[in-house]
């Protein structure tokens, strides 16, 4: 398998600000290869550095040390092949929902309304094209962001908790839709989630980051058959085994990160 | 109608005439050659001898001086002689207390490139003429001069405001105007720099007689102030009149005061200006002069009331005027 993204020796230190806060190392010597066409999930305790790592891969934050290679080439700054769905709400508030989804298409000089409408429909937001972001609920805005990423159709998808704000059922429906697209196109995906179940049902590999400082703790391959049906995957015996394995590791990390001694 | 405001304002500045101590008097001036005798009186101790401490407040334009004088923030204003007539028309009472120079001290100059002959006002037909400010005595004098030469100031020329002294020269330099009427040092400076040439210089006795005395620099105060501070006003007039006399006798003291005012100006230039103007330093305002002011204002339509010499001139200081002779 070809390595698509190679993360080598990445370290990120944030300097103490305003004199009082302490300088701390968030990521420490991260080495990780992401293969072409792989669906790789990042999990870890809250605040362990998942978003920071994604930002570094996307070229938005300069690491204190280490290098990112894409297709064997060293990259600095933003890579045009990457699409990034932020953890934060980053819709442009002055554009309507439709215009927001159209934006990447316009950039690519391929401003086809049908494409945007298709993805909006897919995330269940038919009829909200002409609303402004402020008129949508939190979960709806997240779905627009997803539609925008899909419309952009980049070679590599970086996704930071894309389904985090959705109710259990909506999440399931959208995951299923997303998986269908992915299984057809097999793009490289780095997927940050805090939902273990989601990580297992979707991924090829799950990377658990440790906390303070963030290091690659374990890498767990998920060898469930594809194409996957989510409900089937969850009822698979292997699923439970994987869940318990990773859960144990995560638990340990969280205990450390929350400084629970007992 | 405005008496109440005035008297209340005046309480602050008008000192009791009986006080034997040094009395402070505030003069509002625009820093210009027109009002030089007031500075000379200060620099040569004439005020001091009268027990007066003079303070000078400098204004950008004559209208502001008059406003301040009416409002009471200064005691005397040094500006042009037609002001009391204009004010009388508007129901305000102020008078010329003395003349600072008894003739129109303005010069009409034209851009050097035009090659106009001295005295040829008619040649300005169709040209642009600049004055510092519209609506004042300078503007009126220019119009009177043009009318005298048979030109209609509204139709035959265009009269343009150019603002501050230096602006008129700049406007000629950039050919934005063709001629300009103004006071020293702008006119001499323009000539010195080869930018402009004199057309009519009233100080040399050029130009029509009626225009020569229609607007000249005077010291003014409002009626209320004069009434309440008659003794003090006498002292002021006396001091300045003595200074005028000294200036006529020894133009160098005028040059010295001008030098303090305008530090960078060339000595020779100042001397030549003083030579030209020294004959004009007389304090007296005659009935003829007042008549010529009133007549000119009536012609221009700014005054409609019937005014006499005494309405615009504080004749009670005749005795003090003589000090300048």
């Amino acid at each position, binding site marked *: 398998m070809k390595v698509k993204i190679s993360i080598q020796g990445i370290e990120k230190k944030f300097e103490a600000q305003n004199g009082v806060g302490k300088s701390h190392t968030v990521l420490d010597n991260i080495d990780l290869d992401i293969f072409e066409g792989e669906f790789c999930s990042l999990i870890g305790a809250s605040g362990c550095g998942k978003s920071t790592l994604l930002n570094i891969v*996307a070229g*938005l934050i300069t690491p204190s040390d280490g290098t990112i290679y894409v297709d064997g080439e060293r990259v600095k700054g*933003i890579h*045009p092949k*990457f*699409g*990034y769905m*932020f953890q*934060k709400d*980053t819709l*442009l*508030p*002055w*554009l309507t929902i439709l215009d927001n989804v159209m*934006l*990447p298409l316009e*950039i*690519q000089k391929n401003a086809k309304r049908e494409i945007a409408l298709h993805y909006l429909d897919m995330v269940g937001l038919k009829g909200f094209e002409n609303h*402004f*972001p*402020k008129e949508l609920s939190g979960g709806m805005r997240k779905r627009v962001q997803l539609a925008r990423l899909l419309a*952009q159709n980049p070679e590599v998808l970086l996704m930071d908790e894309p389904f985090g704000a959705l109710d259990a059922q909506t999440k399931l429906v959208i995951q299923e839709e997303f998986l269908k697209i992915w299984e057809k196109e097999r793009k490289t995906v780095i997927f940050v989630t805090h939902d273990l179940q989601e990580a297992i049902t979707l991924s090829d590999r799950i990377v658990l980051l440790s906390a303070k400082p963030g290091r690659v703790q374990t890498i767990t391959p998920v060898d469930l058959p594809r194409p996957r049906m989510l409900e089937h995957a969850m009822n698979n015996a292997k699923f439970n085994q994987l869940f318990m394995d990773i859960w144990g590791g995560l638990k340990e990390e969280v205990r450390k990160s929350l400084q629970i001694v007992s | *109608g*405005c008496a*109440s*405001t005035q008297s209340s304002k005046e309480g602050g500045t008008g000192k009791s005439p009986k006080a034997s101590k040094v009395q402070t008097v505030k003069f509002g001036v625009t820093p210009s050659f027109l009002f030089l005798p007031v500075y000379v009186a200060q620099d040569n101790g004439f005020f001091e001898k009268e027990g007066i401490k003079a303070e000078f407040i400098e204004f950008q*334009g004559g*209208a502001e001086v*008059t406003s301040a004088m*009416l409002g009471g923030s200064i005691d005397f204003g040094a500006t042009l002689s037609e002001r009391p007539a*204009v*004010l009388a028309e*508007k*129901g*305000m009472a102020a008078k010329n207390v003395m003349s600072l120079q008894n003739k129109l001290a303005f010069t009409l100059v034209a851009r050097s490139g035009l090659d106009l002959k001295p005295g040829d006002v008619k040649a300005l037909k169709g040209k*642009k003429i*600049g004055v510092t*400010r*519209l*609506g*004042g005595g300078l*503007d009126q004098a220019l119009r009177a001069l043009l009318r005298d030469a048979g030109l209609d100031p509204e139709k035959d020329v*265009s009269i*343009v*405001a*150019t*603002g*501050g002294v*230096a*602006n008129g*020269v*700049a*406007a000629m*330099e*950039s050919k*934005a*105007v063709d001629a300009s009427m103004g006071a020293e040092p702008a006119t001499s400076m323009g000539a010195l720099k080869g930018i402009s040439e004199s057309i009519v210089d009233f100080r040399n006795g050029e130009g029509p007689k009626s225009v020569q005395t229609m607007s000249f620099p005077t010291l003014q105060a409002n009626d209320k102030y004069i009434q309440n501070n008659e003794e003090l006003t006498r002292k002021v007039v006396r001091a300045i009149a003595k200074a005028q006399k000294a200036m006529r006798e020894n133009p160098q003291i005028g040059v010295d005061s001008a030098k303090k005012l305008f530090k960078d100006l060339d000595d020779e230039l100042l001397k030549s200006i003083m030579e030209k103007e020294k004959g004009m330093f007389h304090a007296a305002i005659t009935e003829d002069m007042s008549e010529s002011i009133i007549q000119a204002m009536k012609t221009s339509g*700014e005054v409609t009331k019937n005014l006499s010499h005494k309405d615009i001139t504080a004749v009670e200081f005749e005795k003090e005027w003589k000090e300048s002779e």
Partner: protein
Amino acid sequence: MPKKEFVEIWGLRGVALFLIIICWQGVLWLDLTTEFWISSPVSIIKKFIEYVLNSELWLHTSVTMIETLLGFIIGTVLGVGFAFVVYRWNWLYVALEPFLTAIYSLPRVALAPLFIMWFGIGILSKVILSVSIVFFILFYNTYSGVKSVDKDLVNNVRTMGGSNSLIVRKVILPWCIPWIFSGMKIGLAMSLIGAVVGEMLAAQHGLGFVLARAAGAFETTGVFTVLLILALLAMLLTSIMERMEKHLLKWRQE
């Protein structure tokens, strides 16, 4: 605007206007000052009507309007544009900053001779005077807006492959709309003042010219009438701007 609200707003404004006029006239009735100083509402309205019927005044008004608008529009475009340029090439701002401050804080009247010499006494010199004020106001405000832009919005559009010019158009400019409009409201009045002061100093036409002439002849009513016309122009232009702003900001949560 709903009709009820409309009536309320104009009711309030009417009351305010009425109070102002009463105070004004009251000061005169109580003999606290005279018409020589502050004229009177009645005289001003009379004079205003006289002016409105006078074609010459329309000429002066249009000259002033042209100068104001030209100065305002050019200054706005340059100021906003320069803020974006400086956003892109920050070293430019770093290098020029003290000089910008220096130039901005020069009292323009002191430079009148140079203005006249270089730009004459026509419309050009007034337009440049206005531009020299409006530019800085718009620049400072837009630049403060640019600095406050949510970096994540910019970054996300950047990851979509958005060029710098697209980011300026689609992200920075809309973000800065409230900043630009606030600058425009401040700048419009300054542009008007700049044009009028320029005309008062040196001109052949324009409301400032009329104003200076009236002031020089102590015609207080004339002065106040011109001021009234200027105020009406400012109100008109400001209300147009506010409408535009409202339209452009309709995406904002009410």
